[in-house]
């Protein structure tokens, strides 16, 4: 069995599972946000005398339209707040206690290796970075998950991604995952797991792994997952997560496909509108002027991302006319960025720094695009209308590419920044 199949079998009380088999698995955590939880709550309330199977295993994170962007968003958050109160759910996160859900849960130690997690948010696949099986579901699954502690799954086949080498300076997990999606397409892993293996894994930080697993869904994947190693265990210890349970893929596990990626060869990569599979390196990128740069989100709003961006911004100014919005993904990250002096670097460079929110990523608030405008963003989707007007465009990139592009006023390779003339930097 693959790593994913091992975890699913254990949670379904089975010795083995086979690809395509439908199972009911026990859940270690059930998550929703301010957009998906209200629908789940309506469904939950349709179940007569429903009780939460385990209030400690529920997480409700107000992050998409929070801080409340309008009256309706405020009503939705209130619905979630009231529900958490009524059912004594401790894991309700809002206001100064909040963060972007997929950055917040790992940080708070709410996910550990070997867990099965469902979330009514497609990027729930992020926690595969910690050796958990985690996947996005809808609100009905969330409702039934809250009531029963179970979810149905079709056991997935897997794509094995063998990593060798190590990343060059200015390159990060984002470039790796955009490269991978470019290789296999937005439905390349449909109904499948993406399992990362190989000697290259050890060179990737937890932040890189979280970013890579986060975008497994953009290749259609059910989940992305990394094996547990020293780096994982050290991270889990630092967050106070419960005792990890380490599963490993069988030697004779069968994979639908094997893809080899040499990390040393990965270049800064940008996904052009309007699909994450439109991945290009700077050899193929001409002059693409931008109006906005966004650095943040569940994909790239972690401290490591902000540090990488700050290295680029330090002593430089964003180009005139480029609205640069930096969003630390959680309050803890915000505070650490403050202590490290990163916020000062961003503000001196002419960037805005916002409270944690998913806001602009999904065209919610805090950075909506007008017709004809272009943004470079460290977010995860560049579909039509994703960040605003249907005639706006989103270019997906890493924090270093987004920062370099903000300074240059156009898509720009961060490795070439020293070559930008002083005049160009100031224009």
């Amino acid at each position, binding site marked *: 069995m693959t790593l994913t199949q091992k975890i699913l079998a254990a949670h379904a009380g089975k010795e083995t599972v086979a690809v395509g088999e439908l199972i009911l698995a026990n859940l270690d955590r059930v998550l929703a946000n301010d957009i998906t939880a209200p629908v789940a709550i309506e469904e939950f309330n349709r179940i007569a005398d429903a009780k939460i199977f385990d209030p400690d295993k529920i997480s409700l994170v107000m992050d998409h339209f929070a801080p409340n962007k309008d009256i309706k968003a405020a009503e*939705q958050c209130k619905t979630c707040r009231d529900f958490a109160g009524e059912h004594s759910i401790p894991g309700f996160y809002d206001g100064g206690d909040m963060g972007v859900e997929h950055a917040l849960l790992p940080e708070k130690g709410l996910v550990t290796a070997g867990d099965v997690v469902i979330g*009514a948010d497609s990027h729930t696949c992020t926690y595969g970075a910690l050796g958990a099986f985690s996947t996005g579901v809808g609100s009905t699954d969330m409702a*039934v998950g809250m009531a029963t502690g179970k979810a149905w799954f079709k056991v997935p086949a897997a794509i094995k991604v063998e990593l060798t080498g190590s990343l060059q300076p200015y390159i990060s997990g984002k470039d790796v995952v955009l490269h991978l999606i470019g290789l296999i397409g937005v*439905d390349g892993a*449909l109904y499948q797991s993406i399992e990362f293996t190989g000697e290259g894994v050890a060179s990737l930080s937890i932040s890189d792994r979280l970013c890579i697993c986060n975008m497994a869904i953009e290749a259609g994947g059910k989940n992305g997952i990394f094996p547990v190693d020293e780096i994982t265990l050290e991270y889990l210890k630092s967050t106070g997560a419960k005792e990890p349970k380490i599963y490993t893929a069988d030697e004779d596990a069968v994979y639908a496909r094997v893809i080899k990626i040499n990390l040393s060869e990965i270049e800064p990569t940008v996904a052009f509108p309007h699909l994450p599979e439109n991945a290009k390196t700077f050899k193929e990128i001409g002059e693409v002027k931008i109006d906005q740069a966004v650095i943040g989100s569940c994909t790239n709003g972690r401290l490591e991302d902000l540090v990488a961006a700050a290295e680029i911004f330090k002593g430089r100014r964003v180009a005139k006319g480029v609205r640069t919005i930096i969003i630390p993904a959680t309050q803890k990250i915000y505070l650490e960025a403050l202590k490290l002096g990163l916020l000062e670097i961003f503000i001196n460079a002419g960037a805005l720094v916002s409270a944690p929110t998913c806001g602009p990523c999904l065209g919610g608030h805090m950075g909506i695009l007008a017709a004809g405008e272009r943004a470079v963003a460290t977010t995860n*989707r560049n*579909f039509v209308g994703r960040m605003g007007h249907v005639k706006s465009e989103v270019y997906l990139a890493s924090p270093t590419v987004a920062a370099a592009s903000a300074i240059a006023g156009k898509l720009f390779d961060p490795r070439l920044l020293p070559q930008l003339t002083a005049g160009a930097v100031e224009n």
Partner: protein
Amino acid sequence: MNKVIKYGDNVDTDVIIPARYLNTTNKQELTSHAMEDIDPDFHKKITAGDIIVAGKNFGCGSSREHAPIVIKESGIALIIAESFARIFYRNSINIGLAIIESPEAAKEINEGDELSVDFENGLITNKSQNGKEYKVAPFPEFLQGIINGGGLVAVAASGELH
């Protein structure tokens, strides 16, 4: 069953129901924006019982259940696609929106064709193409149980989920 409205590959949940409208759970209000960013005339084109036929990876992107909900509430009786994104697939089953995966049918059926669909025997007939038939694999028993039971919540409420 009725008239076909056809879309291409990778119809994502952002164009099915843009996130800017997700500040409500009111189904009527949400439904008024169905398909707005891909097909502003969607509501003018369709009548209850119509069928969406689409290419690969229908419903990709966000897990928002609002997407299958607004399609169902618009009166669409069935979606036939070459393939479905997995969260959209399970959401459709969970809320009782009929979906059929058939690459052959999805490729050959045209906009405006009239279909008849026999779910019991897994047969799509295209009345506009000389009665051309497509055999469809039945759902596994477990999923058919959810569909027959009126969706996942109804099945869970009856204590039949095991």
